[in-house]
């Protein structure tokens, strides 16, 4: 058996230990069921990027970098800038990651983060138009997990949002249809901030911010993206199990309860 396959299998003994703990309302690292691991956000980590952030969520580490470029808008949104979120599960981060193009998990992660940001209109894409219909700013957000010890979605959400909040956009002027990018920079306009709260279902228990082993023990997971108004701006169920409606509503309540604590960890909005 390859190392990657072995690392992706939880021993039954370990699963029993996790469950025994949950029945007593305890987790292995001493957290309550609705508690996050220690969160650290370091912005401006990569000098060459227009914006970047290194986030650690317990032992999970994710770096996000923002690069910008002048490009063409999508045909159906000629008066909006372009936002592209990509994730690469590089083999550095885990024995379960194989080298090669993004697999379904990496694509799912990127799309979940993208949908949350887009639904909340976090980046003010309408302010990124240089020449309507032909020249707009394209904002690339690239997410790289560096160490995968569970809950990549929430860690990546924090990293992507922090990197966007850290982003300085060059000041551009348009003369006779030509775009000139100056040395001067100003913050990327952000309308609202977004956080992602993922809750794993392990038998009948709902567990916030699952570790890698808790993820392996879980039947399914649910992610709620939450904006600053405490509305839901994205949902993704994952995993091969199923939820009761009540469990999904309980998870929603938990997400809304813990979201403010995540907002505290994010940098403030530019100008705020």
């Amino acid at each position: 058996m390859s190392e990657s396959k072995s690392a992706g299998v939880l021993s039954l003994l370990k699963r029993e230990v996790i469950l025994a703990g949950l029945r007593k309302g305890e987790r292995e690292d001493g957290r309550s069921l609705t508690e996050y691991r220690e969160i650290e956000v370091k912005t401006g980590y990569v000098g060459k990027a227009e914006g970047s952030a290194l986030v650690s969520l317990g032992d999970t580490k994710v770096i996000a970098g923002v690069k910008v470029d002048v490009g063409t808008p999508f045909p159906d949104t000629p008066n909006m800038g372009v936002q592209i979120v990509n994730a690469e599960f590089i083999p550095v981060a885990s024995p379960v990651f194989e080298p090669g193009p993004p697999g379904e998990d990496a694509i799912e992660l990127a799309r979940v983060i993208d949908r949350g940001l887009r639904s909340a209109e976090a980046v003010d894409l309408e302010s990124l138009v240089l020449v309507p219909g032909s020249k707009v700013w394209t904002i690339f957000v690239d997410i790289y997990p560096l160490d995968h010890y569970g809950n990549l979605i929430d860690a990546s959400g924090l990293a992507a949002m922090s990197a966007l909040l850290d982003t300085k956009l060059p000041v551009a002027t348009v003369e006779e249809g030509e775009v000139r990018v100056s040395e001067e920079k100003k913050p990327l306009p952000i309308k609202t901030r977004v956080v992602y709260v993922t809750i794993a279902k392990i038998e009948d228990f709902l567990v916030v911010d699952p570790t890698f082993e808790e993820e392996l023990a879980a039947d399914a997971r649910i992610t709620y993206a939450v904006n600053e108004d405490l509305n839901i701006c994205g949902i993704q169920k994952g995993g091969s199990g199923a939820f009761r409606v009540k469990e999904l509503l309980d998870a929603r309540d938990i997400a809304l309860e813990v979201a403010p604590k995540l907002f505290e960890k994010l940098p403030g909005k530019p100008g705020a």
Partner: protein
Amino acid sequence: MKNSNIQLIDESGKRVDGRYPNEMRRLRIEAGVLKNADGSAYIELGNNKIIVAVYGPHESTPKYLAEPDRAVIRCRYSMAPFSVSDRKSPSPSRREVELSMVIRQALEPAVFLNEYPRTMIDVFIEVLEADGGTRTASITAAAVALADAGIAMRDLVSAIAIGKVGGRLVVDLNGLEDQYGEGDMPIAMMPQLNYVTLFQADGVFTPQEIEDAFRMVADPIKKIYREQKRALKKKYVDVVREVEKSE
């Protein structure tokens, strides 16, 4: 998804295609439509046309994907190039990769995978014409195709989207509503066991709207389930009728 000047719901509460908020589009399902596949289904939901083939359980190919204690489901959701207004490249897009995965995960809870160790079950979904709501229609049809293949299951899976247009929750967004509406929340359920197997959303919803959406989806899920059952039984019930008539 972006607000626009297009009015998607009028003063009397009617939608662009004349439906009321809690009304789903015309639904028709047919089971056993393909000769080669072990199980198959065809679904029309409004203008959506989707065909699903199930092959298996069969020997795992490639062998290293096999699991010693259960069957592995392989799912491929694919949109034909001619299924949408602008030709879609036949190579899988990131959207199709994600949908293949979430559709698989919406079906897996319903299948007794441990009845078929070391095997593989293929679910191939081909969207022939798309008009909003293809992922949920695909799940509905795929559940029928799996049952049609004689695969052991706990329940069927029935799916439909709740959306938000003009600030209101509505059932089953069509393509136009999906493009210009404020939100889309696809939901799949095992209708008899009452479990949710797919739950996604984009757009902004208040916490209360999440609850309302589940209340609103119950009735359409029942209707879909009834049509799935009818489609699966039709072939066999027809034979009984024919035999009774001849006697």
